[in-house]
């Protein structure tokens, strides 16, 4: 589903290479986790895939369902089925959460040549999905992420994901700033979306999120490359002995 080949990325503003040849393939129905120390390039990978400005791809490719995505605008990637759950969701006061969700859903539908979702259908869906994430009517009415706690913001990311039903979900440090209960709730939301047609790339620094979202494959990233790939047990290894050993493998 998502195929990344020999991806090299540098910062636009300075001559600093962040990703130094990433190869990665996420199949439909699978959950891949990327773990790695701070500064290894995990978040950069998520930004480059979703189209954030400020990065320059110097080599390599990334394809979603056979479609080259690196030349696309961010909104085109979203319409193609890519979703990034942000590490730091942005606050947009004064724009109702519900209005925003509807705008996003319909913008993607429009881009795909589908009809807009009618408001009754939309409302019904949003209420059901929100309930599963313990998001109340008040949170739907408030400005997007405006004054939300860390946990509320992350749950709101998952709500957006649930509403947009992307093919490929990238979760960037979704566990950061969450207490155990909030993390369980978020994980539950993610697990509910796991199905044969959808792929996940879960980026995390700590193993604990992977207790709740159990991955099929775990990659260790260090110094801009995937240095090791294995099963869930790899995450436990990291938990026990840290990243130092893996960094050693690179050097």
């Amino acid at each position: 589903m998502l195929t990344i080949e020999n991806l090299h990325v540098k910062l636009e503003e300075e001559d600093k290479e962040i990703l130094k040849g990433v190869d990665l393939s996420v199949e439909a129905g699978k959950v891949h986790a990327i773990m790695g120390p701070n500064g290894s390039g995990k978040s950069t990978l998520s930004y480059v895939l979703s189209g954030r400005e400020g990065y320059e791809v110097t080599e390599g490719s990334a394809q979603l369902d056979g479609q080259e995505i690196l030349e696309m605008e961010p909104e085109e990637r979203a319409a193609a089925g890519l979703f990034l759950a942000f590490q730091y969701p942005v606050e947009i006061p004064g724009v109702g959460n519900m209005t925003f969700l509807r705008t996003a859903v319909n913008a993607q539908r429009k881009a795909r040549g589908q009809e807009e979702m009618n408001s009754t259908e939309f409302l019904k869906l949003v209420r059901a999905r929100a309930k599963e994430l313990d998001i109340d009517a008040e949170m739907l009415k408030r400005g997007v992420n405006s004054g939300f706690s860390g946990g509320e913001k992350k749950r709101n990311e998952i709500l957006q994901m649930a509403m947009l039903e992307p093919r490929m979900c990238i979760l960037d440090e979704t566990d950061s700033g969450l207490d155990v209960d909030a993390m369980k709730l978020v994980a539950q939301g993610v697990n509910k979306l796991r199905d044969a047609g959808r792929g996940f790339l879960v980026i995390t620094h700590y193993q604990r999120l992977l207790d709740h979202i159990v991955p099929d494959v775990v990659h260790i990233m260090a110094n801009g490359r995937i240095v090791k790939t294995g099963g869930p047990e790899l995450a436990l290894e990291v938990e026990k002995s840290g990243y130092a050993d893996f960094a050693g493998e690179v050097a």
Partner: protein
Amino acid sequence: MALPQPKIDTLEARLGALTMPADGWPRAAREAALERLRAMGLPGARDEYWKFTRPDTLTAPEAPEAALFDAGEPPMFDAFDRLKIVFTDGVFDPAASDDLALEGIEIARLEEAGAADLHWAREVYGTLEARGHAPVPRPLAALNTAYATDGVLIRVTATPSKPVSLIYRHASTTSDAYLHHCIKVETGASLTLLENGPAAARFNNVIEADIADGATLHHVRAQGRDHERRAATHIFARLGEASVFKSFSVTVNGVMTRNETVVEMAGERGVAHIAGASVGDRGFHGDDTVFITHAAPDCESRQVFKKVLRNGATGVFQGKILVPSVAQRTDGYQISQSLLLDDDSQFLAKPELEIYADDVACSHGSTSGAIDEDSLFYLRARGVTKDEATDILTLSFLAEAVEEIEDEDLAGDITARLEGWLARRRG
């Protein structure tokens, strides 16, 4: 001090084109206003208070021509139940207006009031305007008091069931309209006053609002989207003890709009919130000038102004909070911000605090910025196009000002209009 000759010339040229109405009791107030005006002269380009806004087209003897504007949509506030008072090119239009009768208020037309003995109006007309010239003269308001030909005098004795809506219509490309409204909200009474519509080629409007103890006046004004609008407006509000005055203006397009709001917090525990949201393109020039005097202790004032500018538009904000030593425990807040959508537009701001009391909480801030890249990326990553995302963030920027409107339905209407206007520009 004698006026310099150029000021005298400009003033006399302007006065030569006007005739003072020969009405009854207002005549004395008019003559007093003319005397004030002769002492201060009309605003000139070198006056400090007009540093950011050129007054010449507002003071010229003839109104510059302004094309009529067909909005192609229902007028603002159309869906709301309200008492409609219509002025076309500054002249009361009885056929288009409702009966000027509503329980809890008395309404008289300025043009007819001279013959009637309206004690309360005599105490207001020209009085609040006259108090509003210190320390800064506002000659266009004195000019208005002297020569205004029409307007309404509204006395509010209770809480009427619906808002009073002043609707302005523009029919002649050269009309030069002078309206003067007086509003007296009696103790404990409350009123919502709406204003909307292009009024004339050039419009000079004054509202004097005397808000008694425990009374409330909510004012919501829509200026837009007529491109060639030239308007100089003044609101002079005097607030009694524990009274509330909230005024919000949305200003869209228009080549010259100067809105001055002068508030005197005369009684303890008064609350004044003055807010504005502007959207300007190309030749837009929108100036909000606010002066709030805390003349009594324990009052709260807020100024919230937001301006979206692009394609060379100019936004101006001059806002002052004056806190004399008597006004202990004043709570004053002022924020003015611009969102510059390109490099050609400019925002000129002069925020001022002058505080003599030692126990106050006053803050002010002024910023200019572009669309936030992180927010833009967030929206685009959700599938929203760049243009639509820019509009969403623009609305978000304006929201803090729009939220100052007390009535949620009115605020919702204005947000929906802003949304529509932004989308229309996107084409």
